């Protein structure tokens, strides 16, 4: 295992070095491009650690306080799946920076599609909660 770890680490450092060297010319280009690139590279961890994860933790606490054990699981799963669908739809719904319109591309009714998918998710949540196996919760 020691050899494997060393090999992985060496390959990883080499790939990091190569990726870094590819980024250098982009960072040395126009300052606007460099700022935009650094914001996108650093933005993920900051937004996740300071906003998304605390919000999820808070929501989890609310769910535990507000819902009976029977509904906690289905509702939490429903919220996670809904959130995933919501995130995926952002680039399709918020199009202030989109390229020129192209026939046959990003021209579906995304808001309606999202609503339909979320409705299906919550019907499944309801069914799971209602048909919750009682045998499992009894001792």
């Amino acid at each position, binding site marked *: 295992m020691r050899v494997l770890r060393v090999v992985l680490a060496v390959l990883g450092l080499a790939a990091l070095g190569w990726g870094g060297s590819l980024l250098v010319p*982009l960072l040395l280009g126009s300052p606007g491009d460099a700022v935009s690139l650094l914001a996108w590279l650093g933005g993920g*961890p900051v937004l996740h650690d300071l906003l998304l994860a605390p919000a999820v933790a808070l929501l989890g606490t609310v769910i535990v306080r507000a819902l009976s054990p029977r509904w906690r699981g289905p509702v*939490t799963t429903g919220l996670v*799946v809904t959130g995933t669908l919501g995130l995926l739809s952002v680039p399709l719904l918020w199009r202030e920076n989109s390229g020129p319109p192209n026939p046959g*591309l990003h021209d579906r009714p995304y808001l309606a599609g999202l609503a339909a998918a979320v409705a299906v998710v919550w019907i499944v949540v309801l069914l799971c909660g209602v048909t919750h196996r009682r045998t499992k919760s009894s001792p």
Partner: protein
Amino acid sequence: MRLPKEADFTSQTHGPRTAARIGLWLGIAFLVCFVTGLLSHAIQHPPSWFFWPTRPINLYRITQGLHVVSGVAAIPLLLAKLWSVYPKLFGRPLVRSLPHALERGSILVLIGASFFELTTGLFNVAQNYPWKFFFPVAHYAAGWLAVGALLVHVAVKLPVIRTALTREPKPVDPPTGALSRRGFLRTTWAASGVAVLATAGVAVPWLRQVSVLAWRSDRGPQGLPVNRTATAAGVSTVDDTWRLEVVNGGVTMRLSLAELAALPQTTAELPIACVEGWSQSAIWTGVPVSALLRAAHASPGRAVRVDSLERDGLYRSSELPAAHADDPLTLLALRLGGEALDLDHGYPCRIIAPSRPGVLQTKWVNRLEVL
């Protein structure tokens, strides 16, 4: 209010057993993204040693479809992975030693590059660009960063991963949070599966109606999406003076559209497979490029430069490698689904070759040059 401590997070959804299981699938998704991404990069910027086959005709459609679908599947996996290790963020002291500092640094690079790849990829397939940098170059560079930092991370954590994946689970306590460990894993798989279902229709025909967040439809002209319209390319319908030039050395052959249409035609079902992951099969009719090259007395085994009426633009010209130039299914297509090509699909004629990225299927062709 105070900052939470690592020990404050008591939910079973945190910890190595969860992190290792989700990490395994996230690692597989990233590996698929990386390998298929490297392939797509090499096809578009081929090093001299690189060879890309013309068969199966759907090969690029599959590799690039996998690239995009595994990237979408990785979005909920990444978020769940980060949740499983979130308490670590509050571990103190912040830095214990130099190796510890380097490890935390590599994790910051890993998370930053991972978010970068998944978010810019998702915006790019939607042709939505809320940034100033050139996407293909940045996405390629950050792909190396993500995979490099991932390998370092696996090297550091390998003993923990092995223990977490092989040790017998302890007796299960009732969950203290909203979900049990198992419930959290099931939720993660469900979110990833739904994400795939909601988008994979861009490449998988039978999912087209299910994938409500697919970034393509069937509403393009002749049932096929268009990635660059004639208007955007500054191209208008040609008149009778248009000629296709086939250049071989010092000799130039000129053919009118009527002369091209009078040559023996080949009809084939071939996919347009975009780097943005969507793909669509269609019935194309035209003259095999290899037949035109023979008519120009070119010997087989030569690459061919394809030029477009488009005056500028990154993809106004492409190079057919010898394998594709010689393939009898590589067509200079005049017809799509039995009708003359729509102007947006490249009228008067376009290249359609098996197993190639859509950006290299040059439209509005006016010149072929043997290299």
